């Protein structure tokens, strides 16, 4: 495999957070790392409406397992941060926002390893 979920996170961490465009990319790459890490562990329910990301998140949130549900909610939070970073150009994305995306993704990776 040319790249894996950790490469997305490593790339996010390699970017300088000095510039807003980098911070937006950090948030976006961190989310994709979280997404790819999750999809290795979980198979989304294909009967759920929406794209692959929504399918995965909704499958997790509707799971009877509380740990899976929590992972779904964490992933959903990160997804929405990514949407703000990529589509809401008038909303400032701060250093704390990009740092949070990295730290929360790291926390999600740890949770996935424990699941």
């Amino acid at each position, binding site marked *: 495999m040319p790249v894996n979920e950790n490469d997305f996170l490593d790339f996010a961490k390699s970017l300088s957070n000095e510039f807003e465009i980098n911070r937006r990319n950090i948030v976006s790459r961190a989310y994709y790392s979280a997404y790819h890490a999750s999809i290795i562990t979980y198979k989304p329910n294909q009967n759920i409406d*929406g794209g692959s990301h*929504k399918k995965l998140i909704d499958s997790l949130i509707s799971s009877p397992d*509380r*740990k899976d*549900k*929590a*992972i*779904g*909610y*964490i992933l*959903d*939070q990160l*997804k*929405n*941060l990514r*949407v*703000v970073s990529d*589509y*809401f150009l008038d*909303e*400032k994305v*701060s250093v*704390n*926002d990009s*740092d*949070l995306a990295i*730290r*929360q993704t790291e*926390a999600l990776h740890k*949770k996935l390893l424990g699941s």
Partner: protein
Amino acid sequence: MPAQPDSTLNKLIERLSGYAKDHTKLSEFTVRHLKNEANILMKVNPAEGAMIKGMIACLEGDLEECEKQHEISIKLNHDLIFVQNYASSLSRLGKNKYAYQLIKQVLKDNKNSAEVIYICIQIAFYAGCYSDISNYQDMLKRLKINDIPDETVRYISYANVMTNMNFPDNVFPQISSILESIRLDHHVETKQSYLFSIEDGIFHWEETTADVDTTVTMNIELAEELAIREDLKLDGYTIAFRAHQ
């Protein structure tokens, strides 16, 4: 005895409210100075002194002391200003459910006070009682207020978005309770709420005074709490804490 305009009390209230609004971190010197002022006031009017002490404790983030002093003040004097400031202090420290009960008491006898309605709207918002806000909006319309503060307009507009999601009435107050409990556990205050309409629904991002690491912990706790709440169906609604900006 009700407070008189331009009294020492009013000047102190104005000053403390300004600090609270701006989330100013007070220096030790300022806190000492304010406490001295409160002690002087205490000798003249214990209810006013206790209220000021409660407001100072609020600025220090000391919920226990804040509640203790404000409780003393409203036991000594149940005039509206004492209850109103208690509600505002509690709301600032994130205890919105009780703050909302208090401010509703104040509103009952102050239906023509735009200022009280503004506070009521803000606290109702953070208590998750979005459907109540349209009633307060109607009250403002009846008062023919033209220059509603931007902040209040934002709360009204956000509340409309939330109510349009058509969740059962008890969902948002329950979510607010979860947020409140997490915030209180971490001793952080709400700074601002942001709402984004996204493709799949609404993203509610709540900025607090927490740093990044605390916010990550809070977000995970929030996710874990939502995961055990089978009764809360949040289709198309995502909530997350945002670290301080």
